[in-house]
Structure formats: structure tokens, C-alpha cells
């Protein structure tokens, strides 16, 4: 696999002080762009990916050879129209698609970091990504958008850099990771670290991979991305290529087979230590806490126009948690719109073909862009 040549990286020379206190410098941020930056440089949209996403937003991902994670929403004539807008997305700090992460070597001793990589936060991620604006010479983004953990980065970005985006689109997200979500993440981390091949994070040295643990983590997480109704309609109690129950522990049901498949393909493309680091960053995310418990204060200095979107069947980042952000913005008179999209597809709705969502997203972006021109 020609991995190296397909990944664009920006080396951040400037030291970045992380929330954990450590300082990193000369580190890579991997990114991809779509569309072209116009001469006024006013059509750039910075997209942030979720837990297991990467910089390959749309088109064919050159590494996995599958469609980019947001192909339904981003591309020519799509909601985020790459004929009009210049879309930038980078792999998060701690990730495993080229950005500085636990599978990189520690410059101090040339050993692979593993769990010696510093614990990173959502704040660290956006501070690292901010360097992309300088790289492209963009003074102000037209928009920032992202769902789930991408939405957390959107919120953190506009809080850190209040004048750097005209519009702000957090989708199916939260301003503070809930106990339930921390619990699910912990379940995933425990599955990984319980795998004997994890070797305290040093699996690279031993040429092993905690694939079983990582697959279980993915299976558990995958359930949380769907809705009960969606699962029931898609799988029900349908059996997997068999006439009747086999009275054993093979995958009798289609849902079992489906989850096993999801787990196995995930292992091929994702690093177990990155999974630990990124889920930790999500758990640590509490934007209100950064402002002494007052979420509104996170947005006091921005004049950006917000558009927040949630989904009826999303029980991982439910409507109320998205509405809490709307409420915080309204209480300071910010410009905020909100819509809850009806969908049975659970948290994953933002990644899927949900026309009401894609239409709302397109209308908001296109109308805001035109308005901005006048």
C-alpha cells in the first residue's frame, strides 16, 4: 500500500503546549483538501472528523479504498458543494492517518510512543489544526462543521478563535461528554487493554496487534451509533445464512454477523492506541468547565452565525444536549438556528443519506454564503 504518497502533511514547527502540560513541536498534521480556494480566500470550510474518521472526507479514501466518511454531505453539488467551497479536513492529533499520534516515534529516544504519547484533548486538537489557516493564508473561514467529536472540535475552535469563522455548524454533538458516553468509551478501552496482544501499548515492538480487543470496542461502539428501531428494521431476528438456530455460539443472527464484520474491518484501518487516546480526549471534553461552568461564556466573543442540528433517534448525543448549546447561545443573544431532524438511523444519521438533514445543511450553507457576499 502506497500510504506515504497519499497523505499530505504539514509539519508544525511552532511548539504547542498541550493541556496535559507537555510541549510538542515539529510534529505532523495530515490533511486533505477538496475544491479550490478562491482568490478572496473567503470560501474555505474546515471540516472536523469524528472518533474513527480521518482527513479523507469524500471521494475514494486512498488508504481504505472505500468512500470517504462524509461522502453523502461533501462533494460536487452536495450539501457542502466542493464546486463552490474549499473544504479542508485534517486527521486529529492522536490519530492514525498521518497526524502525530501514539504510533509515531518519540524524537527523544526513537521508540514508538505507544502509551508514552501525551494524553491529548479536543482543545489540543483544534489548536494544532489552527495552523492550517496560516498554511493556506486564510484569514477567516467561511464555515466550520462537524458531527459527534467533530462537533466538539467545532465548538472548541470557535471558542478559541472567535473571529476565525463566519458560520459554525455543530452536528449531533455535546458541549460536555455525559457519564453514559464516558462509560461506553471506557468499555471500549477496557476491551483493548484486556487483549493480551496489547502489551501495555507496546504491541508494535512485538509485531502484534490487539485486534480482538479493538474489534470488540468497535462492535460495542457501533451499537451506540444506531437506534433500536433502525436495528430492528434492518436485522430483526433474521438468521445468518442458515435455516434454523444451530445451538452454538457462531453468528446465528444477522446482527451478530454484521457486528463481527464491522469489528474485523475496523481493525484493518485503525490503531488501538489511537482509539484509547481519542476516546480519552472526548471524555475530557467539557467546554462549560473551561468557563467556570458557564457555557455561554465560551461564545461571548464571537459574532459567528451558528446552526445546530440534532437527530430524533440519536441517543448518544441526544437532542437535549444539542439544545443546551442553543440555550447557551440564545442567553447571550447569539445568532443561532436549530433543527432536530427526524430519522431512525440513530447517531450515524449525520453520516448517512438523510435528505432532510442534507437539505437543511445545504440551504444553511448556501444562503449564508450568498448573504455574506452582499
Amino acid at each position, binding site marked *: 500500500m502506497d500510504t506515504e504518497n497519499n497523505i499530505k502533511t504539514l509539519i508544525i514547527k511552532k511548539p504547542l503546549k498541550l493541556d496535559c502540560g507537555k510541549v510538542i513541536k515539529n510534529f505532523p498534521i495530515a490533511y486533505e483538501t477538496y475544491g479550490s480556494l478562491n482568490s478572496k480566500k473567503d470560501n474555505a470550510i474546515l471540516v472536523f472528523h469524528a472518533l474513527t474518521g480521518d482527513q479523507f472526507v469524500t471521494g475514494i479514501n486512498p488508504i481504505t479504498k472505500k468512500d470517504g466518511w462524509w461522502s453523502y454531505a461533501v462533494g460536487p453539488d452536495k450539501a457542502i458543494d466542493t464546486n463552490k467551497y474549499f473544504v479542508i479536513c485534517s486527521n486529529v492529533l492522536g490519530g492514525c492517518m498521518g497526524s502525530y499520534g501514539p504510533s509515531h516515534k518519540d524524537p527523544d529516544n526513537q521508540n514508538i510512543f505507544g502509551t508514552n504519547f501525551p494524553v491529548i484533548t479536543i482543545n489540543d486538537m483544534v489548536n494544532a489544526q489552527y495552523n492550517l489557516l496560516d498554511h493556506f493564508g486564510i484569514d477567516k473561514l467561511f464555515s466550520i462543521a462537524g458531527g459527534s467529536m467533530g462537533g466538539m472540535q467545532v465548538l472548541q475552535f470557535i471558542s478559541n478563535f472567535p473571529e476565525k469563522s463566519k458560520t459554525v455548524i455543530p452536528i449531533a454533538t455535546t458541549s460536555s461528554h455525559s457519564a453514559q458516553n464516558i462509560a461506553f468509551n471506557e468499555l471500549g478501552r477496557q476491551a483493548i487493554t484486556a487483549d493480551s496482544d496489547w502489551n501495555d501499548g507496546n504491541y508494535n515492538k512485538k509485531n502484534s496487534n490487539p485486534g480482538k480487543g479493538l474489534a470488540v470496542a468497535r462492535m460495542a461502539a457501533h451499537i451506540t451509533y444506531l437506534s433500536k428501531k433502525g436495528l430492528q428494521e434492518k436485522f430483526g431476528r433474521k438468521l445468518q445464512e442458515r435455516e434454523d438456530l444451530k445451538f452454538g455460539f457462531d453468528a446465528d443472527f444477522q446482527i451478530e454477523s454484521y457486528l463481527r464484520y464491522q469489528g474485523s474491518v475496523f481493525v484493518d484501518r485503525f490503531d488501538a492506541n489511537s482509539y484509547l487516546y481519542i476516546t480519552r480526549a472526548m471524555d475530557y471534553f467539557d467546554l462549560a468547565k473551561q468557563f467556570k461552568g458557564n457555557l455561554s461564556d465560551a461564545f461571548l466573543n464571537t459574532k459567528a452565525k451558528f446552526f445546530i442540528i440534532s437527530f430524533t433517534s440519536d441517543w448518544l448525543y441526544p437532542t437535549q444536549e444539542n439544545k443546551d448549546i442553543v*440555550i447557551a447561545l440564545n442567553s447571550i443573544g447569539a*445568532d443561532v*438556528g436549530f433543527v432536530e431532524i427526524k430519522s431512525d438511523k440513530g447517531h450515524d444519521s449525520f453520516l448517512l443519506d438523510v435528505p432532510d438533514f442534507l437539505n437543511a445543511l445545504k440551504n444553511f450553507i448556501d444562503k449564508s454564503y*450568498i448573504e455574506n457576499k452582499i
Partner: protein
Amino acid sequence: MKNEFKVIADLIEQDKKVLDVGCADGVLMKFLKENKNANIRGLEISKNKVQECIAKGLTVIEGNAEKDLKQFPDKSFDYVVLSQTLQAFLNPELVLDELLRVGKKAIVTIPNFGYWKVRFHLLFKGTMPVTKTLPDEWYNTPNLHMCTIKDFFNFVRAKDIKIFKSLALNDLNTSLINSSNLGSKNLFADLGIFLIEK
């Protein structure tokens, strides 16, 4: 645009911050934005209507006025508009109080149950009135608390709410309501428009 909206728009000066509660498909919002340079927000309960507003490039929040007005700070809008919806709330008094808390001024319009056609309908037909402004049947109407212009007039006065302007609408005719003509306006107007403040 319907006459009611033209009358409402005439009550709002240029460059004001306006909240349209129950903004529906955003026709009034769009007009105020384009013609009065209003900094305008909408609150709307219907998902389809919210989508129509977004398609018009309007800032709208999907929500329920009975629960979601409380997130707005006191006097955070110059005007809060509520068009023909007060009677549909479970607790209209609470909503009215919220409108007057959030808005420096509120513009409330009510379909007049005292309109002569409504009275005649009930008197002679003996069935629940169905008119242009009250198009639904008794079994599917969203209206829970119908009132007359006189009822509303007396209600806001009893609550010490200041009435800046009250207007009676009948098709394209608009006229002022005052204490002396209240009885006749209550009979001949099918819609009342009130500019109020607390």
C-alpha cells in the same frame, strides 16, 4: 403577503431585533428582514416549516413557545411577534407573560371570536363556527382558548399591560380600537392586533 403581516410590519421600525414566535414558513420574517433590515429570529414547532425557513435563509429555532421562550434573556428583543397562536397554547397567560418578558414590546394578533359571522354561525346554524380566520372543525382545531377582541382587551388591562396600539382588521380595512368603540369593533373585526408592553 396577507394584510395582517403588512399591519404588523408597519408597527415595527427599521433595524430592530425581532423574534417571531410561531413563525411558520417565515413569510413575515423574510419581509421584515428585507424591508425593515430587522435582525430577526423565528421559533417554530413544525419540522417542515422550520425547513422552509432555512431554505429562505432565515434563522429559526425549532421549539415550543410554551417551553422554549425561557431561554431568552429579559428584554432581549425589541419586538416579539405572536400571530394568531395565543389561543392554541395550553396556558396562554404564561406565554403572554413570557412574550412581554423577552420583548421590550410584543405584537399579538388574535382571531376574534366575537366577529359577527362567528356569532351568527353559532346562533343560526347551531354548530361550531368555521370562518376564514377559524378554518378548522371543532374536532381538529388547534385552538384551545378562543377569545374575543373584548376579552383580550379586558384581559391585558386587568394584567396592567400597557396597550400602545390596538387595531381591528376586517379584510383590508384597518381601524383603531379604543374603549368607546370596543363593542362595535368586537362585532365587525375578524382579527385584533395589539401592540403591548409590560
